[in-house]
């Protein structure tokens, strides 16, 4: 953590991000292209699910990244409230919509996958429902951080919300699991296959890393924009 402190200064962060961003963007595009090739042409079809199993290569990493994104929001919130890092607020503002988008992608691909597999776009499955609630938590964070005339106030309110949210996420997840077993006991075959074969696992992990690159790239780019925006606002207020 101590090594990351040098990035707390927005000007220094900007110099760092401007050096990193072009290469990172190039690597992201390249990795996504290779990942798409692997997902569409290299990975075998599932003997039961056919071609639709390829949705997994986008669906599962999106779920991972949306959960990781909320953990990032909480960490940024903590560093804003504890150390008052000015950059943490701007980065949280930049990261929340990205995380929400990954949650939305996860929900959309899941529902498109559910239609051919389960025969319906939506089931009140525990995992689907808790992902939906995570999406709502993201929406609350985004709405709260932008609800004030003074952006600093919104930043800190959203930071407190992210910390309370991260404490509550496991409780929500647990209670939704409980709720689902109460209401519909195992009517859906889950993807609890004994072990994933390497021919599927390698493209999946490759896509996960590529999408992680995309996530980081988007967050850095958006943080730069937020720095510029905050500067403009301050300049306008001073003028």
């Amino acid at each position, binding site marked *: 953590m101590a090594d990351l402190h040098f990035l707390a200064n927005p000007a220094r962060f900007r110099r760092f991000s401007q050096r990193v961003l072009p290469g990172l963007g190039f690597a992201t595009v390249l990795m996504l292209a290779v990942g798409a090739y692997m997902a569409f042409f290299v990975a075998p079809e599932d003997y039961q699910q056919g071609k639709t199993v390829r949705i997994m290569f986008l669906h599962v990493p999106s779920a991972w990244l949306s959960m990781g994104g909320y953990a990032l929001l909480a960490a940024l919130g903590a560093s804003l409230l504890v150390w008052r890092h000015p950059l943490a607020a701007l980065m949280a503002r930049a990261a929340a919509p990205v995380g929400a988008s990954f949650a939305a992608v996860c929900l959309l691909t899941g529902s498109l996958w559910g239609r051919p597999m389960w025969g319906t776009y939506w089931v009140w499955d525990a995992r689907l429902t808790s992902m939906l*609630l995570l999406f709502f938590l993201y929406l609350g964070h985004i*709405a709260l951080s932008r609800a004030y005339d003074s952006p600093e106030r919104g930043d800190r*309110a959203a930071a407190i919300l992210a910390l309370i949210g991260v404490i509550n996420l496991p409780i929500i997840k647990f209670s939704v699991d409980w709720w689902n077993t109460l209401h519909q006991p195992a009517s859906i075959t889950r993807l609890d296959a004994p072990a994933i074969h390497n021919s599927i696992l390698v493209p999946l992990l490759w896509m996960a890393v590529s999408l992680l690159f995309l996530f980081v790239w988007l967050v850095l780019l958006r943080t730069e924009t937020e720095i510029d925006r905050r500067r403009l606002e301050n300049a306008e207020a001073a003028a």
Partner: protein
Amino acid sequence: MSGFTTLLMRDLRLVLRRPGDVGVVLAFFVVATVLFPLGIGPETNVLARIAAGVLWCAALFAALLSLERLFAADYEDGTLDLLLLAPWPLELAALAKCLAHWIVTGLPLSLLAPVLGIAFGLDGTSLLALGATLLVGTPTLSLIGGLAAALTLGARKSGALLALLALPLCVPTLIFGAGAIETLAAGDGIVTHVAILAALALVALATTPWAIAAALRQAGE
């Protein structure tokens, strides 16, 4: 503790002098609940099955409805600034406000819900269970809602925002509260559910006062 009781009594006295405010919340609860049989149809077995969920959701909405003003009046007339300056923990002030909110909404809602449950055709034990789960579960709603109210203090469109923040966090309480009556119908006891509701209330009691105090401090800055 004297500051705590003073603040609590002050809030209760304020409500007592304008009992209409609480009356409106309870009236909303009754009207919202009565709309469900009208929308769904009068079959008694269907109504008995959905009664717990409907009453719990309506209680949740009614509690949220009254939360918007929890800190707003103090924020506008300067009482909050005095609370911030006072030489005793703001966390206790937050707790007193939430307790006052529970006494004037959560408690009457818990007593009123079983009465409405009769109209939904719930049997005697289910009515008792409904009252008991609401009694244990509504403090959590007051605490989480209090946090949402403190976070949205002075925000634009604070009412809708408050609901958006509080509702996902209230999901566990709703699940175990409404689920208890369902287990009762399946022939099991509700002890587990009440215990988990109590645990949720204790977690909220241990975390939210600090978060509310932090939110109030930045509102006062």
